[in-house]
């Protein structure tokens, strides 16, 4: 029986885990060890606990299984789905807005003309919600609030998603460098939290008050494609066919996106211009 009056046995047994974790304050640690030295019963208790912890650890080691076939399958997945892989990527991301799949890293423009087509864009976020991905709503306030209302109508309450950190609304009123950084930061933060995929729905504020000039928005669009190529994300930018200028539609919508959606069909876009070339032409235009 312990003679130390400093720490009763009953207190020591409650501190064992913190002690083994090195999480006791120096004072408590000293009291703990002082008691331990004088109390054989508590020494036994701690030894029992260490035996239990050691045995649990062995449970982890003992169960190494043969994963031969499984291992080969996973290696194939690595070979075909890894972003080091050149060539077309497997399409695995349901787009929701059309009955088609995209690949991680895709940058898509969505041309809409009717109000119905605009509202359908919220459908892009729906599979993400179901698969517990993160959705980012990037754009001007009027568009974002309409998309949020659209989600609500689909039975997906946006506040609940926001509370669970699954939906972020981001204003685009910042220079293209900052916006590009923000998109990539959002994706990286989500991935760090173990989220499998991030969907970004963009409604850029072409010509809206407080938004960067058209040239800067174009610079953003041109660079998004490369910025997200190796990230588990799909970015879909909505283009208002009736409201935007021909130049915004042509340069932004067509030349900056390798894929387009128009009238319910996803297509590879041969008018896409690689960012470097696009930015060079843009600079010449301005000169």
């Amino acid at each position, binding site marked *: 029986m312990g003679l130390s009056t400093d720490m009763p046995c009953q207190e020591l047994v409650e501190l064992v885990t913190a002690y083994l974790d090195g999480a006791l304050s120096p004072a408590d640690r000293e009291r703990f060890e002082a008691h331990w030295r004088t109390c054989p019963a508590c020494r036994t208790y701690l030894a029992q606990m260490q035996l239990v912890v050691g045995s649990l650890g062995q449970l*982890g080691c003992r169960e190494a299984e043969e994963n031969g076939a499984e291992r080969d399958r996973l290696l194939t997945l690595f070979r075909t789905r890894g972003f080091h892989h050149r060539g077309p990527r497997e399409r695995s991301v349901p787009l929701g807005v059309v009955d088609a799949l995209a690949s991680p890293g895709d940058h898509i423009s969505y041309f809409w003309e009717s109000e119905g087509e605009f509202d359908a864009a919220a459908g892009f976020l729906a599979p993400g919600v179901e698969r517990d991905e993160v959705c980012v709503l990037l754009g001007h306030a009027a568009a974002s609030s309409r998309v949020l209302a659209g989600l609500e109508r689909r039975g997906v309450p946006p506040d609940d998603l926001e509370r669970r950190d699954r939906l972020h609304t981001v204003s685009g009123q910042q220079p293209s460098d900052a916006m590009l950084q923000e998109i990539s930061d959002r994706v990286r933060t989500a991935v760090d939290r173990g989220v499998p995929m991030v969907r970004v729905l963009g409604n850029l504020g072409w010509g809206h008050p407080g938004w960067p000039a058209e040239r800067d928005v174009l610079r953003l669009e041109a660079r998004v494609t490369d910025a997200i190529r190796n990230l588990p994300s799909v970015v879909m930018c909505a283009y208002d066919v009736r409201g935007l200028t021909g130049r915004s539609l042509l340069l932004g919508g067509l030349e900056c996106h390798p894929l387009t959606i128009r009238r319910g069909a996803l297509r590879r876009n041969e008018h896409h211009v690689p960012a470097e070339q696009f930015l060079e032409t843009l600079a010449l235009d301005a000169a």
Partner: protein
Amino acid sequence: MSIGASASGAGRTAAHAELSLIEALRQGDEDAFGRLVDQYHTSLRRVARLYVSNRAVADEVVQDTWVGVIQGLWAFEGRSSLRTWIFRILINHAKTRAVREGRTVPFAGVAADDVGGPEAAVSPERFRPADHPTEAGHWTSLPRDIETSPEGRLLSREAGERLQQTIDALPPNQRIVLTLRDIEGCSTEEVCNALGIRETNGRVLLHRARARVRAALEPHLGRE
């Protein structure tokens, strides 16, 4: 008896090795990926089964986890250890599946961080009462001395069998913390990071789980 707490030098080396591993994986190094599978696949399956009911679904969760790792490599910045990150991806997938299956999910909902009501590591009846004049809070019924021979560091077969049953019977939050910490060998910090809970609460859960396991095994631990 002293328990090593910090080894920042070793920590830095480990972090450095981890960054080169991630770089190798990004370049498509299949041997590196194979080693990663060997290291974690069994663990992932074990943890997945704490969330979803059957083996087939657990295997799907694990496969989704590997796809998440493969596709997340370029976005992963090493803010946490690779192991923590992989478990975090697994737990996200497993939770999603468990919710879809209508199962109760550990650490989900508003009370995600709740550790439950008070719970004594050892029954209070085994100690002298607080008003005892000289030995308040001291053992009355002593824990039985355990074997000290090298063989004594292992559980008897009987106790080993009880061990798995005891783990299976733990409350879900305690079971997942104990599994990650003691069976998989994560640090308390890694466990709490992976589960998104506070470290103090994680340690309370670990403490209770270990105490329950010890109590259940106590009849098998001592020397007759």
